[in-house]
């Protein structure tokens, strides 16, 4: 079980801010493939990974990062703070 969070247009495209996902995915990329296979709205949100960033347990990570031991995965567009 892993908590998956979505922010900004990723949240809007998928239609929810967070969900708990039952997964055996080994990496972030594997999790994305599982989500994309679910429904077209996930497919649309994850169509261009270069437009997305991922954080694992609230630290920025890469898409090939392993998910072992991770409790919270967040997907969002590049940040626009300041």
């Amino acid at each position, binding site marked *: 079980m892993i908590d998956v*969070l979505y*922010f*900004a*247009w990723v949240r809007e495209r998928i239609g929810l801010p967070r969900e708990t996902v039952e997964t055996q995915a080994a990496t972030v990329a594997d999790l994305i493939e599982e989500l994309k296979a679910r429904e077209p709205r996930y497919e649309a949100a994850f169509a261009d990974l270069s437009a997305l960033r991922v*954080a694992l347990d*609230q*630290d*920025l990570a890469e898409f090939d990062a392993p998910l072992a031991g991770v409790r919270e995965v*967040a997907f*969002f*567009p*590049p*940040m*626009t*703070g*300041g």
Partner: protein
Amino acid sequence: MKISVQTEPFDLGTEMAGFGTGREDVGAVVSFTGIVRDDTGAMDALELEHYPGMTERAIAKIVGEAIERWKLADVIVIHRHGRLGVGEQIMMVATAARHRVAAFEAAEFLMDYLKSRAPFWKKEHGPEGTSWVAAKDEDEDALKRW
């Protein structure tokens, strides 16, 4: 040191009162305030979304790096979220250091990193609807100078 992520406005005068003063190791204080600007003349408001938890963590990490690198005596970072009107304050940073160059550089470093590494997302509200502000390549490039 003060880090605050908040919806309510802040008062620059109150925040800066006494900041970096009354001690022997501070010779320079710099502050920067970001204001909601309207480049198109058609913006009603700016909405800032953030990632509670990660935001505070990311800012603390950036502040820690700045303190270490420029030997800062004190730092303030206040960043607002929620719906902000044109002309309202979005955020501020302040740095206190022994010398001027360190205080200025650290403030610029904080700003550059807050822009691209703190999990905030801006959405513009206008008469035609809303649109997410896209991250700029030059903001990412700005990190390379550090």
